[in-house]
């Protein structure tokens, strides 16, 4: 792969990652959100694969396949089934309206660029220049977690946050060692599965999956 081609593919993958994160803020349909999440997982996998091919690193290519299986296939399927099983279709009343959320995402992206200055050093290469995008994805994941009321939307926020962290890991350090990556992916998958079971129980006990119903425990 040529240098310019590599930079272009890298840039496109990073672009899809941030775009899918921002669109999450705008979409209200849960099935649409799940599709966006699958797309984001695929983009992350492509990013890892691109860097793996460029560096001729078979370990990274293996990680790309693993990420594709978990983030683009397994987790979206689990979330889709949860949505179907609980009958939740739309995120009706997020705590802030989509317009404000989109404006906030612009602010967060700016913050990400400012915050990544000390991390990047004097002469960042093509991969490192995309680090602020990863930080922006993390921050948008946080925003989703904080502003969504549906259990499934909160789960999606968690996975977006995790995708952002995986992206930063890849771009700053060339990915973490394989053992750690395996453990991390397995943990994320298990957390999603556990929250899926809890969502089912919430539906059973509360009759809905609106997290605003969780108000019994407080001081």
């Amino acid at each position: 792969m040529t240098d310019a081609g590599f930079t272009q593919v890298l840039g496109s993958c990073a672009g899809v990652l941030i775009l899918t994160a921002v669109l999450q803020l705008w979409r209200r349909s849960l099935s649409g959100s799940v599709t966006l999440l699958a797309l984001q997982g695929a983009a992350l996998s492509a990013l890892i694969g691109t860097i793996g091919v460029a560096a001729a690193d078979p370990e990274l290519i293996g990680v790309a396949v693993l990420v594709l299986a978990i983030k683009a296939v397994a987790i979206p399927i689990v979330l889709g089934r949860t949505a179907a099983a609980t009958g939740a279709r739309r995120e009706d009343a997020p705590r802030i309206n989509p317009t404000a959320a989109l404006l906030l995402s612009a602010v967060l992206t700016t913050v990400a660029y400012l915050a990544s200055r000390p991390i990047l050093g004097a002469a960042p290469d093509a991969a490192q220049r995309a680090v602020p995008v990863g930080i922006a994805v993390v921050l948008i994941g946080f925003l989703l977690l904080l502003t969504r009321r549906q259990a499934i939307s909160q789960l999606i926020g968690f996975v977006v946050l995790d995708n952002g962290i995986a992206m930063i890991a890849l771009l700053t350090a060339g990915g973490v060692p394989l053992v750690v990556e395996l453990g991390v992916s397995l943990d994320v998958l298990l957390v999603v599965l556990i929250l899926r079971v809890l969502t089912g129980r919430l539906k059973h006990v509360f009759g809905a999956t609106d997290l605003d119903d969780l108000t019994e425990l407080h001081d």
Partner: protein
Amino acid sequence: MAAVIWLALGLPTLLATASMLSRRRRWTRYAAIIASVVALVSGIALVVLTRSTRAVTSTAAVTTTAMTTAGGILRADSLSAYMLAVVGLVALTATWAGLPSKDIGDSSDSVDPGEGTYSALLCLFLGAMTLARLADNLGVMWVAIEATTITTAFLVGQHGDRRALEAAWKYVVLGSVGVSIAFLGIVLIYAATTAGGAPTLSWVLLAHPAQPLDPDLIRVGAALAVLGFATKAGLAPMHSWLPDAHSQAPAAVSALMSGVLLSVAFYAILRIRTISDALLGPTPMRGMLLTGGLLSLLVAAALILTQPDYKRMLAYSSIEHMGLLALGAAIGGPLAIGAVLLHILGHGLAKPSIFVVAGRILTAEGTSRIDGVHGLLARQPRLAVPFLTAMAALLGFPPSVLFFTEVAIVVAGFQQGLGWAMAVALTLLLVIFAGLARHTVNMTLGKADSTGSALPSVRPSGAMIPLGLALALVAVIGFLAGPLRDVIALAVATLGGTS
């Protein structure tokens, strides 16, 4: 020696599998106790072994051959061996005392299948904590700590009612997000080593002065990692999941979470502090830990005073003790760090005891409200006496070891020129003391014939021996200067104690 490490990790997993497979058998009830004994024995064995050789490295044949890091993924040194022994001791107290009572009337050989699953999850939980102690790799340690969230999620939601589900949801979401932040920090620490040209996640190498590191990345990475693990350790302002989870989980699970899970997360903070201090000096970590510690004490003081629920009151007391540990870590130096390690043991023994007793009080009285329980000493001496003793130990009445460790932390603080912080901490500790003492007196003393006793009270059941042993140990540890001092001193040396 590597065999001990493998045994400590392998047996809990094996027990968990066996409990899952034969979950209708009665013996599965004891699986978690066996797993605790394994952790305790292997911890003590490693303490003894590391005393002569200082460091055992197990070159994990299967998993490390593909790794580029030097050395093994698993490692036992004085500190991790001591911490493993603490896990075992606390877990033994919690699981033995939390054992379902035998005299319910079923003499058949089978039990509810839910019980087998419960035991299996407890064993896996213990295995995850063991792995967190024995991993010489920040990434693997992270995976183990996240695994503790996964294994305890269903244990917290065990009761299945609205409150338990709410607690479980908040616990899993906040816990996972918190440790995700820690992972971001670990990633940046890893990036700092790749920038230096020698990628590694081994905390031994990271703390080594010869390791080339990028200071800016370590500064940001260590801060994020400590922030993330502080969520799991229950330090304010990231503590909000803790009172919910600890008050809704079954007694034995609250006991384990409060006694050891918090300190497992705190152990990660101690390790990261060593890395940061070696490169950047003590200032950045001291600021963070001091803020977290004082805030935790403030939150605990404010909410214990007005607390209507005694299980939540105990949860806030855990936040108080974690705050004290953070203060000790912020102060640094051999005296404070030694006191922190001893405090982890003392709190680890006293807190599970009182959580288990609180669980029995809940069963006997049918309410977890403080104003619903009166005159316990007159009506239920078998509950009131251990409750009072454990509370006295937690409050730091001598000869409780917590008295000595708290004094040591405060003295070390004054020595290091943190007098203002210690003055604030002492004031808050006094408020907490008053609050806890007032609630305890309201519950235990007073006449038996008040309104609360109108309910037909259930006879309390459950083993008293583990509670007695644990509380006796809390009382004598402070005087076991001989053997324990060496162990603690070696552990402090591993943390780069500047002695």
